[in-house]
């Protein structure tokens, strides 16, 4: 296993001391520490790395960075750790790495789809889906099934993720994105003027373009300057360095989202460490120094393996000591790319020719190439590549770029590598994330960041500043300006500038699409967006068909839809559209750049908010007891409430019947701590209650409790509960468990925005109190044993509350009842909740006191016809609908919340849905909650539904099943029969009755 394309040691970026073995498509290879998977594959002379999505053409590596459209792999050796779609060019090599192509069957070298691709290809222009597979309609699903077989790149893991992720927030004066020369210089000068600086770069080390540059700074190779500068930054404690950290998004108000890859370069999975960390940076000022991406040229068969970006080739040579071929033809529109010819030549391989689309150039790099005796052909272009799995040669022909034509015969050159450079496109993505549109700059033939409302600065290649000396001075200046804007320093860089002489460069040519002797529609495929097989012909076809907006072009052809988000192809696609519509590129405009800059792991976006931390689980002080006693729990909002307490071998129904009977016949106990409690104080507290509750509060005496209903302004019930009067200007309001937070906000809203003049304060005391409700004929006996006050009926009356001690613990006891039985709601300070609960259990033992959960509580209250807001109401139910006119104040002078809406037409309708009880004809049949109700069981579908079942249970105490329901005009239909057509096809009958089934006179709460 020799690395055929690895040349003699010269780069410090890779470590020859550490050889790493890895496998690709089942074959073993070797590379070095510092390699990316891409550089290692190229070192080993691997040409075909995948098959194209639509036409299944062989594809090779084109780029060396985030632009890569082809080398998209499945990496990982297990179903838990495998990662779909990482880019080989951005994946650091590690020992034992296992990679495979994501397309190609049975393998990428022999792929049966390719024959289909060849034959079918011509039938698959953009939008071909929309034009066929229509008939017969019934068959689309099966067509689709076939299409989906071919869909997708990599495969998802099949089991959960063994790695963990987390997040960190940061604040800084200056956030620098990009660690190339511009970014490093900016960070340094900002830090030197005292700013808190964070700098991040998505590569494995800082330096950007300098990591592969042969240029000199202060007489040394540029990477030395990088090391020096990074060391300086590392020494300052106002600087935070984030390598391997991609800024995936730039969000409103200067929030920068960064994904740091902490362990991906070490191996497939690291125990006990965070795989990726998401950093959220709030920066006073942001400096974007994201540089520029080289643009390929669009020519026939430009996807044959061996066709690469010029700068990518230089990167592989200078950074990784890898020359990805033997015979190079370079096609360029600019001087800068001549570097690649020089690098190739100096690596000891043959440069067949440099094909320059310009009529001439006398730039220094061009002269240097001339001096090396390399043939330069001006006014020409590579119009077509020959070869299938590797470039075999190219046709070079004279062209007239202005009228997009080939002006003479083509000459054939044998070569195995084609480098192309169409100039550079600034990496404007981030600057566009918050809605700013980029603007075209003719001098560099590229888009640069436009106006923005963010506190943003740009420098270096991103601005179209390319000469290294300018890039670095630009960086220093921008860093100083940004930190001044953040309130640090004078805004001027005073340090000295490194000595750099930049080669003088002649003007480059704005050319994107290389003409062919055949017209585009007939020429061999000229690829624009490789990943989605978007061709120049396809784009022109889209335009011909009327898809003229660049957004339509994108959506019709899938240009820029890929995982590189058009980094490689978008500008070329826009240029081709512009050309075919006879517009300028700025007129054509760009599509919208969105996060993610490069794809971001779901796990990192979720951070630690997974599994048991996905959402807080709230517990009462007695939770441990419930656990120890085998409770099943119900999620109520964020709370975990005991649902029922099954005993050995009991079914749920058996538990419920036991709990219900025990409570009705002796005594039961419920943990009611989760109910919301609001401490309301102030001389206007009473007046306030008067306004937010529908019933009157003026006369509630100290020491008394009262039930109240709250409506929205639209007159519909939204919460209810008991409020107790502690003294004339102090009340404790209880709310539903789910409604607690909402009700407090509601009260504050009205107080703060409408009635600030009312002297009242609200504070939540929900968590302060542990509440246990003991209910049943024996409840007073239990309480009497451990309570220091007389709890008998005549001294402690229904709807009274008392201060007392229970088992020596200070308590507030409310004599209210939600079960209809004699009940005491014992409230103790929550730190005493558990001891109090245990004491009550002990005292109740002789009465077989039985803990019950929410389900039994629901049954018992339903037997009494008490509603549960949210179960028996759904936001469309008024107090009148609930037959609760008694809770509606008639003579209150203030027009309390909700009242006005009751006089609207719809609220006065006769046949509104109203709360009633239902008795199923079959006393043992429990109607399903949610069953719909009709009057005429013989009506055919669609049937006229007149209501539905809101609560339904079997009552062990009454010995028959029963339900609460809403029925149109139900209040006046007591005794009538209704029908419930169930989902199993059966229709059952039930009789409308009063919703109060148990103890209608209400004697039991006074036994």
């Amino acid at each position: 296993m020799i690395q055929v394309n690895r040349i003699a040691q010269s780069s410090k970026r890779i470590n020859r001391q550490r050889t790493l073995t890895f496998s690709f498509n089942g074959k073993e290879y070797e590379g070095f520490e510092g390699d990316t998977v891409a550089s290692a594959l190229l070192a080993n002379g691997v040409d075909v790395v995948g098959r194209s999505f639509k036409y299944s053409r062989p594809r090779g590596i084109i780029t060396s960075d985030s632009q890569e459209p082809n080398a998209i792999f499945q990496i990982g050796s297990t179903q838990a750790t495998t990662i779909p779609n990482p880019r080989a060019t951005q994946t650091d090599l590690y020992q034992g790495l296992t990679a495979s192509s994501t397309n190609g069957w049975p393998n990428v070298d022999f792929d049966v789809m390719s024959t289909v691709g060849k034959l079918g290809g011509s039938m698959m222009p953009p939008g071909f889906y929309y034009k066929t597979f229509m008939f017969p309609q019934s068959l689309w699903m099966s067509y689709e099934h076939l299409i989906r077989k071919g869909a997708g790149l990599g495969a998802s893991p099949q089991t959960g993720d063994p790695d963990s992720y987390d997040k960190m927030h940061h604040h800084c004066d200056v956030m620098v994105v990009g660690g190339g020369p511009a970014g490093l210089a900016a960070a340094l000068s900002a830090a030197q003027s005292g700013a808190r600086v964070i700098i991040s770069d998505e590569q494995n080390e800082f330096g950007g373009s300098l990591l592969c540059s042969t240029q000199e700074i202060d007489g040394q190779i540029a990477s030395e300057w990088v090391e020096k500068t990074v060391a300086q930054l590392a020494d300052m404690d106002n600087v935070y360095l984030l390598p391997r950290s991609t800024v995936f998004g730039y969000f409103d108000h200067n929030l920068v989202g960064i994904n740091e890859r902490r362990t991906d370069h070490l191996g497939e999975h690291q125990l006990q460490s965070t795989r990726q960390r998401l950093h959220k940076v709030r920066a006073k000022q942001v400096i974007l120094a994201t540089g520029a991406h080289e643009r390929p040229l669009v020519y026939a068969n430009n996807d044959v393996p061996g066709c690469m970006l010029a700068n990518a080739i230089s990167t592989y040579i200078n950074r990784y000591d890898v020359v990805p071929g033997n015979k190079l033809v370079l096609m360029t529109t600019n001087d800068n790319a001549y570097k690649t010819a020089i690098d190739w030549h100096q690596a000891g391989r043959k440069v067949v020719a440099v094909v320059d689309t310009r009529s001439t150039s006398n730039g220094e790099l061009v002269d240097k190439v001339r001096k090396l005796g390399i043939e330069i052909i001006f006014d020409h272009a590579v119009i077509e590549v020959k070869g299938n799995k590797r470039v075999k040669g190219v046709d070079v022909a004279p062209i007239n770029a202005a009228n997009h034509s080939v002006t003479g015969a083509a000459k054939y050159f044998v070569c195995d590598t084609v480098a192309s450079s169409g100039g550079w496109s600034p990496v404007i993505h981030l600057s566009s994330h918050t809605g700013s549109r980029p603007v075209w700059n003719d001098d560099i033939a590229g888009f640069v960041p436009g106006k923005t409302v963010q506190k943003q600065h740009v420098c270096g290649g991103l601005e179209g500043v390319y000469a290294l000396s300018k890039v670095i001075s630009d960086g220093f200046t921008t860093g100083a300006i940004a930190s001044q804007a953040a309130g640090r320093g004078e805004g001027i860089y005073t340090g000295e500038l490194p000595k750099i002489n930049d080669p003088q460069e002649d003007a480059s040519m704005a050319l994107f699409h290389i003409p062919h002797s055949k017209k585009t529609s007939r020429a061999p495929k000229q690829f624009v967006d490789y990943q989605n097989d978007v061709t120049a012909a396809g784009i022109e076809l889209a335009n011909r068909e009327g898809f003229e907006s660049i957004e339509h072009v994108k959506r019709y052809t899938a240009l820029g839809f890929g995982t590189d988000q058009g980094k490689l192809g978008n500008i070329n696609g826009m240029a081709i559209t512009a050309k075919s519509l006879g517009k300028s590129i700025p007129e054509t405009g760009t599509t919208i750049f969105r996060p993610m800059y490069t794809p971001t792991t779901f796990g990192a976006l979720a951070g630690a908010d997974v599994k048991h931390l996905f959402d807080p689980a709230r517990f009462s002080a007695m939770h441990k007891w419930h656990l120890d006693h085998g409770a099943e729990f119900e999620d109520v909002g964020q709370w975990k409430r005991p649902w029922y307490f099954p005993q050995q071998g009991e079914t749920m129904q058996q538990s419920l019947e036991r709990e219900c009977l025990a409570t009705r016949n002796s005594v039961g106990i419920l943990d009611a701590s989760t109910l919301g409690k609001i401490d309301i104080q102030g001389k206007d507290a009473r007046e306030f209650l008067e306004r937010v509750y529908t019933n009157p509060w003026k006369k509630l005496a100290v020491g008394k409790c009262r039930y109240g209903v709250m409506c929205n302004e639209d007159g519909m019930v939204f919460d209810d509960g008991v409020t107790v009067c502690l003294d004339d200007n102090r009340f404790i309001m209880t709310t539903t468990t789910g409604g607690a937070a909402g009700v407090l906000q509601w009260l504050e809203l009205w107080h703060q925005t409408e009635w600030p003049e009312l002297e009242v304060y609200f504070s939540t005391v929900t968590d302060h109190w542990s509440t246990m409700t003991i209910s049943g004929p024996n409840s007073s006996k239990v309480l009497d044993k451990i309570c220091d006050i007389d709890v008998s009926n005549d001294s402690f009356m229904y709807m009274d509350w008392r201060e007392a001690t229970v088992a020596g613990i200070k308590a507030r006891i409310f004599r209210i009842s939600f079960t209809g039985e004699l009940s005491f709601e014992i409230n103790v300070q929550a730190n005493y909740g558990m001891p109090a609960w245990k004491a009550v259990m002990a005292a109740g033992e002789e009465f077989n006191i039985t803990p019950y959960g929410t389900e039994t509580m629901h049954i018992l209250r339903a037997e009494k016809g008490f509603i549960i807001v949210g179960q028996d109401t759904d936001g469309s139910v008024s107090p009148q609908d609930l037959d609760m006119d008694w809770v509606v104040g008639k003579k209150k002078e203030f027009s309390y919340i909700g009242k006005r809406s009751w006089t609207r037409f719809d609220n006065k309708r006769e046949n509104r849905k109203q709360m009633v009880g239902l008795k199923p004809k079959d006393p043992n049949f429990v109607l399903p909650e949610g069953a719909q109700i009709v009057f005429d069981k013989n009506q055919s579908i669609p049937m006229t539904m007149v209501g539905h079942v809101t609560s339904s249970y079997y009552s062990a105490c009454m010995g028959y099943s029963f339900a609460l329901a809403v029925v149109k005009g139900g209040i006046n239909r007591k005794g009538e029969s209704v029908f419930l057509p169930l989902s199993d096809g059966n229709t059952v009958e039930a009789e409308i009755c009063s919703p109060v089934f148990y103890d209608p006179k209400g004697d039991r709460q006074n036994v």
Partner: protein
Amino acid sequence: MSNSIKVESPLHHAQLDQLIGQSNKGGVILHEAALLGHLNLRGNAQDAEFLAGVQEALGLALPIMPCSSAKSELAQIMWLAPDEWLVIVASGREYDVEQKLRAYLKGHFAVSDISGAQTLIELSGENVIDLMNKSTGYDFHLEIFPVGKVVGTTFAKAGAHILRVSEDKFRLVVRRSFSDYVWLWIQQGSQEYGLTIV
């Protein structure tokens, strides 16, 4: 109340007492300042009488600057809102301090005993800022968050008031029902630094 009763702080079930001393080289150090007296105080900071009343009752001037706090032998006061403060007193003192406040204060004010409603979690150690940055979006730089400052903010998906006790020590006021979640969060967030319970 009789002290034979076994009171249970919100983190009682975590049995922190048994974890004390188990690891001592943690980058994050946690201590539950359990069972202290917590009073929620409401009143008008523009009302000189009210301010004077608090001063007399607690022997301490009410901190009326946003996000400020004050401390005396008797009590620590945290600013929660322009008209709302948290008064923390020694365990068991909440009752008489409340009575004292009621005695000294006139006009429109409110006091609620919320000693059972929340607990104090003290976090310190060399990595405490890292843990904080994992848990809240607030800026913990000393310039922004000096010693003595209190901020009401989010802590992971719970709410909390955070007081900076010293450069590397914070007091979190956490609601009882959320305390288990916060405890779990802190454990996972401090895993890489090590967690010491004191």
